[in-house]
């Protein structure tokens, strides 16, 4: 539920933000292609046995790209460790994920209450979280829960999750409706201050280091100048810049 209202929020971001100069160029990808590129790349961050909490929307798709032979356990803040596939056939409404979808519990799963869910999340027991953003900045601060005076869905569990997870991965479209989302300093109210470790978009991968963003990987469809033009923050280019795949 962290990002349930993400889409409706994004509609509201129209003003004051810098326009992405390349989003309407020949390099534009479809939503489905973006989703696949980002989700596929994010899934590579997991290690065997990791416990991961995914945000709603694009981040949910990450689960589809975990290699078959790797065991990653998905945790849902509403009380399920071991989220499985969507339920088919006779629906049991007593088993849902944080987005309200009816899901299966995998072999080895367990159910628990909200206190326990947040012991996992805020207490540092989640290895990685992947979530979306309205804005993310060069300090690793994240804005994802409200646009003052416009859309205020609430933070749900996202603030606790971002503070507590060992690794925080923002997975999103590089820009949204042509507006720049990776900025020097977030202008929207923060979800968390300096907690993001990595930003994965369809164009590139940034790591957040003490001195700011470092470009680690780039999608060969784009040039470094493309990234510069569509990113609102300065960044350092890794000596060993790799192709994103």
């Amino acid at each position, binding site marked *: *539920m962290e990002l*349930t*209202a993400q889409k*409706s929020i994004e509609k509201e971001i129209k003003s004051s933000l810098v326009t992405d100069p390349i989003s309407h160029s020949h390099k534009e990808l479809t939503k489905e292609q973006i989703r696949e590129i980002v989700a596929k790349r994010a899934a590579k961050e997991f290690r065997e046995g990791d416990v991961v909490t995914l945000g709603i929307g694009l981040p949910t798709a990450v689960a589809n790209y975990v290699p078959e032979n790797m065991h990653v356990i998905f945790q*849902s*803040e*509403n*009380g*399920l460790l071991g989220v499985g596939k969507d339920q088919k056939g006779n629906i*049991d*409404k*007593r*088993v*849902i994920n*944080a987005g*309200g979808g009816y899901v299966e*519990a995998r072999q080895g799963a367990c*159910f*628990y*209450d*909200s*206190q326990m869910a*947040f012991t996992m*999340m*805020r207490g540092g027991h989640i290895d990685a979280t992947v979530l979306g953003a309205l804005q993310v900045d060069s300090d690793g*601060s994240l804005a994802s829960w409200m646009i003052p*005076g416009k*859309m*205020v*869905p*609430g*933070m*749900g*569990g*996202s*603030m*606790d999750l971002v*503070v*507590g997870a060992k690794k925080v991965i923002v997975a999103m479209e590089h820009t949204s409706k042509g507006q720049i989302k990776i900025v020097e300093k977030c202008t929207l*109210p*923060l*979800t*968390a*201050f*300096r907690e993001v470790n990595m930003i994965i978009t369809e164009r590139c991968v940034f790591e957040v280091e003490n001195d700011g963003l470092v470009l680690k990987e780039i999608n060969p469809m784009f040039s470094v100048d493309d990234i510069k033009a569509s990113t609102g923050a300065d960044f350092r280019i890794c000596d060993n810049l790799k192709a994103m795949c």
Partner: protein
Amino acid sequence: MKSIVSAQKAISMIKDGASVMIGGFLECGAPDMLIDELVKQNKKNLTMISNDTTYPDADKGRLIVNKQIKKLITSHIGTNPETGKQMHAGELDVELVPMGTLIEKIRAKGTGLGGVLTPTGVGTVLEENKETMNIDGKKFIFEKPLGADFALIYGTKVDKYGNVSFYGTTRNLNTVMATAADTVIVQADELVECLDPNEVVIPGLFVDYIVVKENN
């Protein structure tokens, strides 16, 4: 042995202006029958404490649409556009609290602690007007305990001693809310004579009234 009553009788104890905690994560594990009765009896000016306001046509969401809530303390209202609409129109006072903090505030009340010291929200607007505490070089926000006059909770199986057990992801905030209200009313999917003592999730001493779904 606990009092087993009708939804009508249980809800009739709640007066206009009361504070009410309601369990459930979206529609899952929500005491829908008790909420329906709250709508039917049209209790007004309530303070509602809940995880979310679900959807406009579902359980807690109907209380919003029916304008029975004066003050709402919750973590997420994005699934119910009516909540945001009333908030922006100044008709509904909404206090948004991170989910983990909301749960700990309720737990602090139930477990007799003076408050919560949480790292969640540090460096955000949530810090404004809050007391903070530096502990070993790290900043924490102080939050007060949160109780209510009533808790309306759900249980999958409830026994005659008030013990509650759950199936699936229905536990959510039901467990912590049971500890933090003056009067706790549980809606039971099924009433049983006696649960296995190892299976009990909410010990019977927290429950005051049982309403059985099939009886209504």
